[in-house]
């Protein structure tokens, strides 16, 4: 089965940056979504192993999207990595919503790559 990463951020440039960073690195197929609602829809379709989920999005934000992904048995098993603006509150909020890990923006691309390597090796 193809392993998939779903990249969710309302800024297309950040999505592109993450996708380019992870391209051809770990053999994952890369999918993108521009907001929380699209993220939930895409996740049901592509069953991602990893979801990079931006917290700060209009309409359905990352926290809410995370909660919904966790509550649907089809998507509940994904490793959810929250992209936060930093701060203890953002981190505890992300963890309370069910995120596994978080990256603080601006994130380190090296850290991103190592994270995917580690998650890929563990599963």
């Amino acid at each position, binding site marked *: 089965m193809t392993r998939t990463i779903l990249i969710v951020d309302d800024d297309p440039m*950040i999505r592109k940056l993450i996708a380019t960073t992870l391209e051809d690195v770990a053999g994952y197929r890369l999918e993108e979504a521009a907001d929380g609602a699209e993220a939930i829809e895409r996740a049901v379709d592509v069953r991602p192993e990893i979801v990079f989920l931006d917290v700060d999005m209009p309409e359905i934000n990352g926290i809410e999207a995370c909660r919904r992904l966790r509550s649907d048995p089809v998507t509940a098993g994904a490793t959810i990595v929250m992209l936060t603006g930093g701060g203890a509150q953002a981190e505890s909020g992300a963890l309370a919503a069910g995120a596994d890990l978080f990256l603080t*923006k601006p994130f380190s*691309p090296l850290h991103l790559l190592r994270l995917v390597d580690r998650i890929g090796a563990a599963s």
Partner: protein
Amino acid sequence: MVIAQSIGHTRVVCVSRLDNALVGRAIEVSVSGDGENIVTLRARLDRTERQASARQRQLERYAADLREVFKQERNRAQELRSSYRATVRALSNAVEARDAYTGKHAERVTAYGIALAAAAGLDTDLVPGLEFGFLLHDVGKVAVPDAILFKPSSLDDAEFALIAQHPVIGADIVKDIDFLGEGKLVVRHHHERWDGAGYPDRLAGEQIPLAARVFAVADAFDALTTDRPYRRGTRFSRARAEIREHSGSQFDPEVVAALDTISDARFAALRDGVA
């Protein structure tokens, strides 16, 4: 962001600081409603500005990581090279340990050879295996029995044939070491002669790899200037004269000419650097 609303008009002028300067760009937007529209507009522009500065910070982070990776890579290349050098030296020392008389011949001839290669026009940075090939030139001697290698009297044909195999055996020993590169050619061809009378392949002139032609001169220079049990080493000037006598027969004339562009003082410094 600056938002100005003129009283009595439904015109809002927004100056965005997207490019960090108020002079940057001004967007004039007509709004049909009241304060609520302005609030929406303000939120949207705030968001765009936040996004722009987040992008900039993110790109700076990418640049910082790239710089780190570059530095790491550079350090690792240096570490790798010094590990290679230490390993090659250990192998070269193992070969030399058999012969108490040659002392640090391999290291001296390597120092002379690199200086001579540069003088002969070889870009020594582009031929990283050169140094290693010089150090390992005699590695094939491990396969030659002591009784022949250290025989005090002259060799018969069969014995010489065995000695003449050492470059072939040496080349076979190092054949799978990729980082040796052109250095492997030195191991195989360091006993070829310019006139084609050398061994093992009887190559002549420019058929002989330049690195091996350079090595042959450096090797002779060290042999002539180093004390042996049966003779004292000659002075640099006499060694130069003797090598010149064999220019065009044993040695490449251009390499012999290059030898004379390196001063005695320089050779002395190289020799003392090894000792």
